[in-house]
């Protein structure tokens, strides 16, 4: 099994606190790796380090065997999709313009963009009729579908989702979870998925990475976490979210 992303001793601290202790992590190809942990444990920091919104203090990050550096990050960003909780859609652009923004910028042809766009609409179950709407004219669920289309438009090798479903109401969230899982399976997509919701982690996670206070505490399947917890925090975290049908 090959790793698409590999973090080696990566750490990040802010003036007042360590956001990420020196950390090693591999994100396997064609799998969904879920980062889970309490709020403030460093999940977003880890994602933001990969897409280089922030610079690591130490260590290195490899993408497909290539060390990510300031001079290759622009190209690499085209190969990574990133969706945040708020969606990150630009309000002055229509759904269509948001989705094709990057494709247009790197000079894809009109036909190519149009066919890819329709493909994305079908994949994410987003009505083509809504493409000319502005973000403010869309529901929360629709907006996240558009964000997803935008992230997938250039067929990225890696998809980073930072609590992308976190702001949706339960019904919409459930339907989007289902669609997402299908999409990932259909595309054989490599995904690094951040959530603080254990049920969601279990639903998506081929591999679950549990974090706490800037460290990875345990990595494995849900069964591993439940039956062979690395420490007290793991079992506490698993049992805190009661009522979840743990498979």
């Amino acid at each position, binding site marked *: 099994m090959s790793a698409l992303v590999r973090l080696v001793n990566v750490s990040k601290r802010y003036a007042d606190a360590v956001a990420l202790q020196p950390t090693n992590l591999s994100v396997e190809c064609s799998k969904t790796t879920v980062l889970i942990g309490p709020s403030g444990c460093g999940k977003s920091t880890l994602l933001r380090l990969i897409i280089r*919104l922030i610079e690591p203090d130490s260590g290195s990050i490899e993408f497909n065997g290539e060390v990510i550096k300031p001079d290759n990050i*622009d190209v690499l*960003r085209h190969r990574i999709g990133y969706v945040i909780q*708020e969606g990150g859609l630009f309000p002055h652009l229509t759904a269509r313009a948001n989705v094709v923004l990057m494709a247009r910028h790197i000079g894809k042809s009109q036909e190519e963009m149009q066919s890819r766009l329709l493909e994305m609409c079908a994949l994410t179950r987003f009505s083509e009729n809504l493409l000319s709407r502005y*973000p*403010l*004219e869309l529901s929360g669920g629709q907006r996240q579908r558009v964000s997803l289309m935008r992230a997938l438009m250039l067929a990225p090798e890696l998809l980073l989702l930072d609590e992308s479903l976190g702001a949706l109401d339960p019904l919409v969230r459930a339907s989007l979870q289902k669609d997402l899982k299908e999409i990932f399976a259909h595309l054989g997509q490599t995904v690094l998925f951040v959530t603080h919701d254990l049920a969601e982690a279990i639903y998506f996670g081929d591999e679950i990475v549990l974090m706490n206070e800037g460290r990875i505490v345990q990595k494995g399947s849900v069964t591993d976490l439940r039956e062979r917890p690395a420490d007290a925090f793991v079992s506490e975290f698993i049992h805190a979210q009661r009522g979840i049908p743990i498979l």
Partner: protein
Amino acid sequence: MKRIWKTGKQERLFRSLFFSCVPAFLITSSSAFGQPVVIGSKKFTESYVLGEIAQRTLQEASGEVEFRPGMGGTIIVWQALKTGEIQVYPEYTGTISEEILKEPGMHSLDSIRERLRAFGVGMTNPLGFNNTWALVMRRSKAERLGIRSLSDLKKHADLKLGLTHEFLDRQDGWPRLRERYALPQQDVRGIDHALGYAALATGEIDVKDAYSTDAKIAENDLFVLADDLNFFSRYDAVFLYRLSLDDRRTGLLKTLEGTINETLMTRLNAVAERTKDYAKAAAQYFESHGKSNMIYSESFSHKLTRWTLRHLELAGFSLLLSVAFGVPLGIVASRGGPIGQGILGFASIVQTIPSLALLALLVPLPFFGISVRTAIAALFLYGLLPIVRNTASGLQDIPRSLRESAIALGLSPIVRLWAIYLPMASRSILSGIKTSAVINVGTATLAALIGAGGLGEPILSGLNLNDHITILEGAIPAALLALLVQWFFDLLDRVLIPKGLRL
């Protein structure tokens, strides 16, 4: 204020369009070959009229003649002549020796001429009248008290004197007059020239200072007290001109020597004040000399168009500059840090300088002087702050999540700025530009103070003539223009702010 009579309507329109897209220094540089001769005048009726007369006279020569009436006081107009900003203006021998050369005793024309030559300035012979200071009283009161001369004032210590501030302050004014005639009056107050006449009529004051050719003397039936000790120096009207002025034009100016006596000048001043039309008063001069019966009088609509176009030119061009510099500065300022703070600080400080003071500060600088570009530069600086501040705050208000989304997508910094950040900040930037535009349209009325024209021109001459109608001729269109600008920018909002931001 540029009056180029020989340009047609279309050309004028073209000029104003042209002006709004070419840098100011290209247009207003007056040193270039083939430029029109520029006549200036001071800011009072007689100077306006003499300027008009010179203008009509010089039009006999080929080439354009430009007239900038009401540029300001002696120092400003002299400075403009000295630097070649203007080539001709009417002056008085007394003022030249007292104020310009600072040689109060210098009376001979030859010695004055000699001294002026050092500045590259020439002087015509006197035009024929002596507009000196005088003290005046109501004729009835003077007759009742038997006062005929300044010496007679000694016997009436209880008379109330209302003198202009200039007369009170000047070297050759009140302090030495009082000394020379040993005047005993205690009740001496400073009062505005125009208001002084009203105060004289109501009896609030008994004596005031005046110019001997002042139209108000005849109008109000005032009595000029004889200067029996020959205290006042002579203020013979002359034209000063650059010695570099060509012979033909110099010759034309000299045809005016000795052609205006006190009676005629008083009458011309009266016509100017009555009709509020200096060109008409000048025409009377030519009429009286049988030179021409054609009165060049500009129609009101023509004048209004001229003022408004110039006003828009001033406000529009300065706004363009404010935008061209303000938006990039705002972008830099939005990044914060010492440079950002510095930019915002500078723009704020400029705004705290009173607009009049800003003009006054720019005038003595080498590149500026009395010119349209000074007005544009001042308006440009004034319009800077709202644009810089709104651009910076508009950019800073973009949520971090959206900034980061743009970065994470892999858009280059330029594209991020151009395609994402600026459109998102467009509402704030446009509202800054609107604020600047409205400020500029209002402040541009001050441009008339340095002869740059616009709707401030009628306001200024109205103030000078104490004529409310003329003031309104400028004030109303200026107010309407500000409303129009406001409305235009509201419209522009709808075009320029992306639809997605207006939902």
